[in-house]
């Protein structure tokens, strides 16, 4: 039990702050599992967060995100920035297990003490992933990494949520995935601060580039063109050859400078914390209520909903009235 008590926890926090990678890896597991001792550690680390620039990288499967992240890390390392990578892969909804394979494409980064890569499974828990990722990222931030890259498969709402926790969100597209404008349909463009057309040497890249540019222009005119707004650049890359990566790193840095200069960074951080506070309040209140309700009460209510004997809004009022 040496690790579970308050003193062990405080020691671990000190070790994480001093750059101990083993302690860091351990704490990430505790945080990911929502272990009780993680909460105290996160509280102790919170004042040390807010320094890293958080970069979300998202896109459909097959766009080459992992290779892109691999190359981007190399560029950042060339600028003497330390980098942590959180690579999220989907949990199988059928078995609860996951194959986390992003390290395959990041083998170039092995042996570099300025890089730390952590794989995470999405677990399929609604809302849970965004929170677990936010906490994992926070620990890496406190551990002193200059940049934290968060790589997710941009397929669902929770991935979009994660991307939103980043300061700069990079959305990756690639030609030849069957539909050049898939991202546009999914509404994922709206979260992009920087757009990448990866595999730019392949047929269809130019069409993908033009489609992106056109839809960005539509978005822009709809929002009106205030001078202080950021217009997402579109960067062409060939990640496996390292092409376009310096430009991508530049674009991310420009966005960072824009956030710092315009006050947008502070605004984003405020919105992010407000959303997190709201989410945590909802989760906590729900858990508290569910714990107080008589056994089977919730299930019984669901049965009544199913039989159309009650509607959801009235059900909530009844449950809350019974509780009060």
């Amino acid at each position, binding site marked *: 039990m040496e690790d579970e008590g308050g003193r062990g926890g405080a020691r671990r926090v000190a070790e994480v702050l001093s750059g101990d990678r083993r302690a860091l890896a351990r704490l990430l597991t505790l945080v990911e599992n929502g272990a009780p001792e993680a909460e105290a550690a996160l509280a102790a680390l919170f004042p040390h967060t807010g320094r890293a620039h958080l970069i979300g990288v998202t896109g459909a499967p097959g766009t080459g995100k992992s290779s892109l992240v691999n190359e981007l890390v190399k560029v950042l390392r060339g600028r003497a920035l330390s980098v942590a990578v959180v690579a999220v892969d989907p949990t199988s909804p059928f*078995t609860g*297990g*996951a194959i986390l394979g992003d390290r395959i494409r990041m*083998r170039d980064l*092995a042996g570099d003490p300025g890089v730390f*890569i952590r794989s995470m499974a999405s*677990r399929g*828990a609604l809302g849970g992933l965004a929170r677990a990722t936010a906490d994992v990222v926070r620990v890496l931030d406190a551990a002193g990494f200059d940049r934290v890259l968060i790589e997710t498969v941009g397929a669902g709402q929770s991935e979009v949520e994660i991307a939103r926790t980043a300061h700069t969100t990079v959305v990756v597209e690639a030609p030849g995935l069957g539909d050049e404008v898939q991202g546009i349909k999914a509404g994922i463009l709206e979260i992009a601060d920087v757009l990448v057309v990866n595999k730019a040497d392949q047929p269809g890249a130019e069409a993908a580039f033009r489609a992106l540019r056109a839809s960005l222009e539509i978005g822009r005119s709809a929002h009106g063109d205030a001078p202080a707004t950021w217009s997402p650049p579109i960067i062409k890359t060939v990640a496996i050859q390292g092409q376009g990566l310096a430009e991508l790193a530049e674009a991310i840095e420009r966005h960072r400078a824009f956030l710092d200069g315009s006050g947008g960074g502070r605004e984003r951080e405020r919105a992010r914390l407000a959303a997190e506070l709201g989410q945590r309040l909802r989760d906590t209140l729900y858990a508290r209520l569910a714990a107080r309700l008589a056994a089977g009460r919730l299930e019984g209510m669901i049965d009544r909903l199913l039989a159309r004997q009650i509607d959801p809004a009235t059900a909530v009022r009844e449950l809350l009235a019974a509780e009060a």
Partner: protein
Amino acid sequence: MDERKIRVLVAKPGLDGHDRGAKVIARALRDAGMDVIYTGLRQTPEMIAEAALQEDADVVGLSILSGAHLALAPRILELLRANGQGDVPVLIGGILPDEDVPALKAMGIAGAFGPGTSTETVVAAVREAAQKKWSRERGG
């Protein structure tokens, strides 16, 4: 709170390019509900130890078909110990002559599985190794 998932690193050290076995095992472990960190081909012992550290692996599974298991295994165990991960069980699967198994066990390999081992056997061994490690942590 989420239940704790077994984090198992599946790595393929050495220079042969056959990862079918490793992939079959990775899928079987995934289907058993584990989080499988799959690192791919041609991993050096240093890369494996580094990944085990960063990923906080509960178990390391090595697939070795090259015949170099008696050279690779002690090196990987040594690096894990140097990183403070001497408590992480290491299992090996692949082309392992029966007569080498006692030597592997003696150097601290937690399980060695030759050709023809069922995936069920491997899944059970990984689960048992992880649970033993966890109970040591709780007891220690």
